[in-house]
């Protein structure tokens, strides 16, 4: 147990990676052995994430240095800068890792029966594990270049999975768009890393933040990083890839690609708050993030209304919901240097934005899964060719209702809890923004009502007479997410206090992040 706690940051990455390498070898041993192995690895990784989470929430930031004689020794004996790669796990990292793990487990269980009879299953699962590793690595790492490498892993795995249905032309194109955007954004990140490295000869985030001088080159690097991550998280001016990719990705993968954009959002926050934040005036950057958020919210939902493809519709809603997260955290960023405003509403706004990340990963993931369940049974994503499915697919309909109510911010559900935090605090920052946010929420509700009526109620389409409920593993996959949503809805206060507020504090508290690594420097 001691061993597991000490080495958990490394094992969280290493075990799924090992699984990804072993799965192609297991392919010939039979599907049952492979699935059991996958479940075991995923379960054990989830257990390790939980162990690490408990450790971080009770004991503070954890540093794990790869290849050092002592894991905590980020800086070699008697030297002044970190040399090796280290993972630095603080509350926000582990918060994202928890969200990632839950979504991955649900997506994996869902895929088990969804893939029955398809070819290339072992490669599919291998890539699924790699996508999981990519997200976890991106969230746990404390090194800029390592972040780039994990960003590439998740991009390539995501693109390969997105075009899984190669017999459909749009699937290949969706994957191609995703990989072009990913490649360009990753190269921009690498360029920014090069600029930072050239000035400080450092790659560790904490050490870079410690030495940051905020000169012209640093600002260029910040610009490149921000553009790259906004591109990757599908913020509005650069969102065009998202509907195409989300619409074509196979079941289980869409929620994971969506979660990987949330991981990019984490990277954006990490860069703005931890790498730059603190000593320099973040007000302007905060406003940029707010404007991006408002644009994403508004344009996303407006584009969503008139879609007839159910997954494209949900993809536009996903863009719109990302806007809330950007808005909440952007307000926090705008008032970061003003302690009074930060204490009175900035922290709440950030709590809302960060809480929204996990809420959204849960209900948006579940909505994507329900859409995919419908596609699985009736073979079309066109809303005009659906109808009366509620009678035949009762569970799917129930899950859809839960997800739709949660995403629209209807009171008992968790979406309401995070949106309320955002509305209240943003209202004190700028009332207009809050009004826009509420308006977007209403439009979201209207849009999902439309989907519900056209897909699940009304007369049965004659062509859909043979439709049955989806297989059990798909229901369990959705059920896992639904259970989490219900838990979060019943105890929002508990969740905010236990995992969201520490995450916010970790983002704001740049000094302790730096201290985690540079504390040992002479």
């Amino acid at each position, binding site marked *: 147990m001691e061993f597991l706690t000490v080495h958990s940051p490394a094992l969280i990455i290493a075990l799924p990676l090992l699984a990804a390498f072993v799965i192609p070898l297991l392919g010939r041993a039979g599907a049952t052995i492979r699935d059991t192995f996958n479940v075991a690895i995923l379960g054990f990784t989830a257990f390790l994430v939980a162990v690490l989470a408990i450790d971080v929430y009770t004991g503070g930031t954890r540093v794990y240095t790869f290849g050092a004689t002592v894991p905590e020794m980020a800086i070699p004996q008697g030297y002044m800068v970190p040399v090796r790669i280290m993972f630095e796990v603080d509350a926000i990292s582990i918060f994202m890792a928890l969200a990632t793990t839950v979504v991955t487990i649900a997506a994996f269980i869902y895929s088990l029966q969804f893939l029955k009879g398809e*070819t290339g299953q072992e490669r599919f699962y291998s*890539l699924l594990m790699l996508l999981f590793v990519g997200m976890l690595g991106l969230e746990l790492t404390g090194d800029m*270049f390592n972040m780039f*490498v994990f960003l590439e892993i998740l991009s390539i795995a995501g693109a390969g999975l997105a075009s899984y249905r190669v017999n459909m032309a749009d699937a290949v194109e969706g994957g191609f768009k995703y990989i072009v955007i990913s490649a360009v954004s990753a190269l921009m990140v690498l360029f920014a890393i090069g600029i930072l490295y050239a000035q400080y000869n450092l790659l560790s985030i904490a050490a870079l933040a410690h030495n940051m001088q905020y000169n*012209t080159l640093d600002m260029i690097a910040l610009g490149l990083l921000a553009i790259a991550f906004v591109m990757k998280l599908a913020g509005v001016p650069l969102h065009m890839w998202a509907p195409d990719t989300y619409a074509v990705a196979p079941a289980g993968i869409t929620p994971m690609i969506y979660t990987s954009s949330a991981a990019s959002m984490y990277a954006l926050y990490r860069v703005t708050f931890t790498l730059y934040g603190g000593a320099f005036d973040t007000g302007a950057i905060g406003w940029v993030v707010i404007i991006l958020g408002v644009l994403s919210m508004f344009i996303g939902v407006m584009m969503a209304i008139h879609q007839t493809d159910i997954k494209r519709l949900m993809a536009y809603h996903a863009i719109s919901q990302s806007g809330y997260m950007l808005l909440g955290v952007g307000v926090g960023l705008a008032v970061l240097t003003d302690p009074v405003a930060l204490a009175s509403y900035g922290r709440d706004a950030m709590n809302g934005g960060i809480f929204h990340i996990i809420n959204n990963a849960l209900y948006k993931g579940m909505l994507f899964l329900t859409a995919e369940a419908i596609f699985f049974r009736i073979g079309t994503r066109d809303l005009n060719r659906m109808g009366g499915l509620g009678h035949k697919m009762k569970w799917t309909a129930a899950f859809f209702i839960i997800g739709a109510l949660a995403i629209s911010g209807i009171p008992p559900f968790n979406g309401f809890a995070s949106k309320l935090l955002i509305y209240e605090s943003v209202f004190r920052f700028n009332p207009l923004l809050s009004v826009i946010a509420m308006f977007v929420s209403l439009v979201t509700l209207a849009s999902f009502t439309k989907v519900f009526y056209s897909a699940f109620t009304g007369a049965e389409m004659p062509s859909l007479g043979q439709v049955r409920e989806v297989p059990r593993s798909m229901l369990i996959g959705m059920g896992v997410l639904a259970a989490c949503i219900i838990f979060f809805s019943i105890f929002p206060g508990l969740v905010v206090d236990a995992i969201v507020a520490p995450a916010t504090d970790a983002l704001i508290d740049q000094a302790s992040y730096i201290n985690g690594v540079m504390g040992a420097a002479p």
Partner: protein
Amino acid sequence: MRQIAGWILLIVLVAFLISGALSMHPFGYPPSDMDDYMIENSQAETANNNVVAAVLFDYRGLDTLGEATVLFTAVTGVLLLFRALKRKEKGS
């Protein structure tokens, strides 16, 4: 419209990059805190003459694992996309 916006974006970005290039450290005289440690200690710590190999596999080993993983991911992805869509009959 799209053309004009594209050109503006392109010119602004390249201008930024060139101004950045001019304010870089002079070519050939980089700061080297972290790298000096590796050059000095790679032989003693990793028993290795090739400092680049020491950086690749020891000091920054996780990056190389990630890099190998990227290659593995890409190969898996390529083979996934080129897979046969229908299962072959047993024994053929």
